[in-house]
């Protein structure tokens, strides 16, 4: 028992190093590092660095305000909920000013205006304007303005994506007939792609602005002041020139028709990485460079999984004992908990814990929300395994213990529980392997685990193949010791039961082959 506590203490130390305290006036800003180019994305030549025209804007903005920027990563879908939850002070990542958004948050004055750009394969002749998209397969970003436009058009088979790169991939390989995206995304996704061409006039008008929570009026005023300064001083124009994002629409918006002042250096760097096909050697070197970041992400995955499993193992045992031994009403509560946790998707549970519970004052860090969410869910499964283990013990074992004068607790502790635990170790180990994989779900609550890291790199390099294989292997390697342990415990169990009740580790189904 003491050893157990010691182990837990060591785990705790390993898992939760003291958090660094932040000093001075910081501006916590939320964005999605997978949000995509050219807004913000991992630098292809150094994936630890996030670049993008919005990063440049944040830098200029905070420089003007004299604040230190602190980046908080969140998935694009959840940027607005994250703002409401107070994960950060402002959100900026291609957030469109829409009536729905304006209901929940305030927007600054716009920092950029753009339009939708229709893209098709070069050989496509029959799609030239938006109306041609009727009855065709069209891809766009989930919950975006473009999706709304397509829905209003009607009769379009809309397919929505979270990662824009996937859309153009699907357009290239023929899964889509067209793609409708904000012009910057189109330029950076396909501006240099010989398979794809842009068609039609600008569609609609998209206004990007910085989201601030409704309560934070003071900050909104400061942000607006900064944007006006950046616009009037020409700093914004410079950024857009560098990123090749200046357009007639922007010229009209800023009332600035002067020619380009700086070269489109950032766009050219980007196009360079998309240029000629990589040689195998360069590709492998790039993958090698990914490994440290993937290793760090793997540790996050392992930390969340191990913590969740410890919660599941302990809570599951308590639930099972409550179910089997406790008074009726406790037993019913335990059963209800188990059925509820097993009967609802773990994804919903994670969303609820992370975004829902703050409404009632329970605010967990992403790590603890993930660990507790997965832990509670798996506790339900472990409870059922323990319960089956406890009920598999013959009644006479229990009665023999009681007949020797033991109390219920002593009989449980000395006789039935040790036998049950022996039986449940293999299935619980199996569950851990499964939990390790389910931990990929924490990527949706802002944690950069192995799955999130994969998404980031894949989006940055436009390469889902190599990183996918590497990440799959890392999952396998992490899980392997537990697979081995599970086999070992199964074998030991079989050996201890070799009085004939159970198979001594021999595969009886294979024995038939000898008869052939």
């Amino acid at each position, binding site marked *: 028992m003491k050893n157990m506590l010691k182990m837990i203490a060591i785990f705790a130390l390993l898992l939760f190093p003291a958090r660094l305290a932040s000093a001075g006036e910081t501006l916590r800003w939320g964005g999605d590092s997978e949000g995509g180019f050219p807004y913000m994305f991992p630098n292809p030549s150094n994936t630890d660095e996030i670049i993008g025209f919005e990063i440049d804007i944040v830098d200029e903005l905070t420089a003007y305000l004299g604040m230190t920027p602190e980046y908080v990563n969140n998935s694009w879908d959840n940027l607005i909920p994250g703002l409401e939850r107070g994960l950060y002070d402002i959100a900026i990542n291609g957030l469109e000013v829409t009536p729905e958004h304006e209901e929940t948050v305030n927007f600054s004055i716009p920092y950029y205006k753009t339009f939708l750009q229709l893209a098709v394969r070069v050989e496509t002749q029959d799609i030239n304007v938006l109306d041609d998209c009727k009855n065709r397969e069209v891809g766009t970003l989930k919950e975006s303005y473009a999706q709304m436009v397509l829905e209003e058009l009607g009769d379009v088979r809309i397919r929505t994506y979270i990662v824009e790169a996937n859309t153009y991939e699907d357009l290239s390989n023929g899964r889509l007939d067209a793609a409708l995206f904000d012009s910057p995304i189109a330029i950076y996704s396909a501006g240099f792609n010989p398979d794809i061409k842009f068609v039609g006039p600008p569609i609609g008008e998209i206004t990007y602005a910085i989201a601030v929570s409704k309560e934070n009026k003071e900050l909104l005023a400061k942000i607006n002041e900064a944007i006006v300064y950046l616009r009037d001083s020409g700093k914004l124009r410079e950024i857009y020139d560098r990123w090749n994002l200046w357009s007639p629409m922007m010229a009209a918006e800023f009332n600035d028709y002067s020619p380009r002042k700086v070269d489109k250096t950032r766009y050219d760097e980007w196009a360079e990485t998309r240029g000629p096909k990589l040689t195998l050697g360069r590709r492998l070197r790039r993958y090698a460079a990914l490994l440290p970041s993937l290793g760090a992400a793997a540790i996050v995955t392992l930390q969340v999984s191990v913590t969740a499993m410890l919660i599941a193992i302990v809570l599951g045992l308590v639930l099972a004992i409550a179910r089997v031994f406790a008074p009726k009403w406790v037993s019913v509560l335990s059963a209800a908990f188990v059925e509820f946790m097993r009967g609802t998707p773990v994804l919903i549970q994670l969303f609820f814990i992370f975004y829902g519970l703050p409404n009632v004052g329970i605010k967990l860090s992403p790590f603890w929300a993930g660990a507790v969410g997965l832990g509670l869910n798996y506790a339900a499964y472990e409870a059922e395994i323990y319960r089956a283990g406890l009920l598999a013990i*013959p009644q006479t074992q229990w009665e023999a213990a009681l*007949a020797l004068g033991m109390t219920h607790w002593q009989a449980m502790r000395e006789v039935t529980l040790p036998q049950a635990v*022996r039986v449940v170790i293999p299935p619980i180990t199996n569950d851990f392997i499964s939990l390790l994989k389910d931990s990929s779900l924490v990527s949706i609550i802002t944690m950069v685990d192995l799955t999130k890291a994969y998404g980031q790199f894949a989006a940055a390099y436009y390469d889902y193949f190599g990183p996918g294989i590497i990440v799959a292997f890392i999952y396998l390697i992490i899980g392997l010791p537990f697979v081995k342990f599970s086999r070992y415990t199964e074998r030991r169990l079989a050996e201890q039961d070799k009085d004939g009740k159970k198979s001594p580790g021999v595969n009886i189904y294979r024995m038939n082959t000898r008869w052939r």
Partner: protein
Amino acid sequence: MTVHNTPEESLIVVKNLCKSFDDRSDGVLNNISINIKKGDLVSLIGPSGCGKSTFLRCLNCLELLDSGYIRIGDVELSRGDISRRPDAKMLEASHKMRAEVGMVFQGYNNLFPHKTVMQNVTLAPRVVKKMPEAEARETSMRILKKVGLENVADKYPSTLSGGESQRAAIARALAMNPKVMLYDEPTSALDPELVGEVLQVMKDLDSEGMTQIIVTHEMQFARDASDYIVFIDKGEIVEYDDGDILFTKPKNNRTKEFLRHFKGTGTAVNY
């Protein structure tokens, strides 16, 4: 009736014991009354489902009686009727009573499979009586020698024969130093050649003065070794008497009918 013990001279006194189950029509006991003296070896016989096992289970409180009175040594347990809910006093009495009673169950898988024979025997003294490990091992070794198992002390139950298992189960119960030993068909699951070694242990204990109650189908053993035999049918004690008398001149027709099944069958066992 040649057997007649007064409550005053008896170690075990049972008066008007009744027990029923919600979900079972058999195994019901109706007004069982019997007195058993210290040192007696008593066999309980009767058809399946007659209630003889339930009677044993009531004596060590694995089943709580509906109504009636049980005294074992100085520990008394009584219940007016089934509507009286078990209270703290009854639970305490039943716990004390278990400490006075050792029990050996049917079948031979009742040892704790995750512990060695020695650990099986020392567990209860250590956990219940808080006996120091060394002392517990010493007493246990003495008992294991008595039942002839000193050589398998460090083996796990799965490696024992059925006869060894039942002897180990007896040793485990003896380690708590009970006043009474109860056996619920202790040899029914054993191969015939292993029955003798278990019955021999009971005979040895009898000669040491242990009080023992045995539910059994070993009629020859019951007849030869018991001080008297109790015949139970349909939840009642039909009659009880010295083995020779009961087997040769049963008074009751139900007893005659039951014993007829065993006439001429090979119930004799070498022990």
